[in-house]
């Protein structure tokens, strides 16, 4: 699957608290119940800590989670 870009993942104004680096957009692998999604998300270029914006977590990621919920 190609890299998924989501408009919610806006990097501007975010800085890594631990490293002090400006976050940059980079492809991040999200795994849920053995399904893998590569999504471009803000992350710290130094420690690779990823920011998942609240809108994404409560929006599309929640929808994917519901789709993958099983019996």
């Amino acid at each position, binding site marked *: 699957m190609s890299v*998924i870009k989501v408009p919610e993942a806006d990097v501007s104004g975010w800085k890594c608290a631990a490293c002090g680096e400006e976050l940059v957009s980079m492809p991040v692998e999200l795994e849920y119940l053995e*399904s893998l*999604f590569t999504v471009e998300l803000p992350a710290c270029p130094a420690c690779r800590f990823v920011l998942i914006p609240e809108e994404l977590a409560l929006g599309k990621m929640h*929808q*994917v989670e519901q*789709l*993958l919920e*099983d*019996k």
Partner: protein
Amino acid sequence: MNRATESVCPVCLSRIPARHETVGGDTFLVKVCPDHGAFRAVVWRGDPGFREWSRPKIPSRPGTPFTKVEQGCPFDCGLCEAHRQHSCTAVMEVTWRCDLGCPVCFASSGVDAPPDPSPEEFGMLLDRVVEASGYCNIQLSGGEPTMRDDLPGLVRQAKSRGFGFVQLNTNGIRIGREGGYASALADAGLDSVFLQFDGTRDGIYKALRGRPLLERKLAAIRALAEAGIGIVLVPTVVPGINDDDLGAIIRFAAENSPAVRGVHFQPVSYFGRYPEPPADAQRITLPEIMNLLEEQSGGVMRASHFQPPGCEHSHCSCHANYVVIEDGGLTRLAGNGGCGCKPRPASEGADRAKAFVKRQWAASGPDLPMAGSGDDLDRFINRASSHMLAVSAMAFQDCWTLDLERLKGCCIHSVAPDGRLIPFCAYNLTSQRGETVYRGKCDGPVRA
């Protein structure tokens, strides 16, 4: 490896000790009746192994048990206070008439059928389901329910009383034949059809149902798709008859996605009168179905994709979910979170199964217009929500294979005419001579 349990004697139906004996990769239920001798029937062949196929549950007792423990399992069903699982599905037989006389039938339908329950009696039985199990999923069964001209009225009655998911178990003959019938059922609120669909060749229907029915099945599928009723294909799998057609059934289901929502295989079980016990060669078990699906799908499906159930007893079923992608191929959608080895409350599994079935086995909503808007994640969400195909298999138990541990965890409950809820395999249990424990012996009236 031996696992002790209890079963019944196939001849006299007395409760007797039993054990599971695994030899090589095959597991047998072995039991001895003091009066009628030893019995041995295969219940599991091959990998994944019988012992590993486990998803333990903490028993959830019925909220309102209708019967006390007096004679012990399986003779106190109602549900009794010792039952270990809530109802996921209440099966309601609305007629015992049938327009087919199949050699394989749980209900021995069609011969000297008693009168159909009246709409009032049906309503009283719905009240009993609410009292016992709340608003669980409802399956209207029979007999062949479409023999009743007032079937849409029964669907409407169940929906208007608040049951969120109503499914019809049918051979599809009337639905395919009678213009406007599927839409009448849809207008009444029917969510889903459990369509008897044994294969993609007419020879299979001739062998199992006594006549060629493929064209009629295709007509039913067209009518249901047009009416917006979710379709689950339900093949009864019989060794030597249609066990070579499982991959073709999946391909057919994928071609007919999203109208077809799932395929639910039922390995043949033996109810009714059998002068001789069925030979092991006449049985097919869950791991064999998983492995045949892997072989016959060219490896697109894998036996390892399948998971044990969170609702019914582990050894009763398996399931895996796929998305039908644009070119008609399948992509596996999900596994279960975690190892499934930590016991969870049974009722939690029942609630999840009810919600999954309600969502997946009903028709998908209209596709959202995506052209020009949305990203890849949106497109994935859109495709997966409309084109998921749920593949499952459920092994029913007959008098040779009955494991009372499994029966105690059953979540598919037949609603007897007298208002008792009876685990499906107990309700349909017959001795080798065809004698029943419950069917025909709890004919009502509804007991309050």
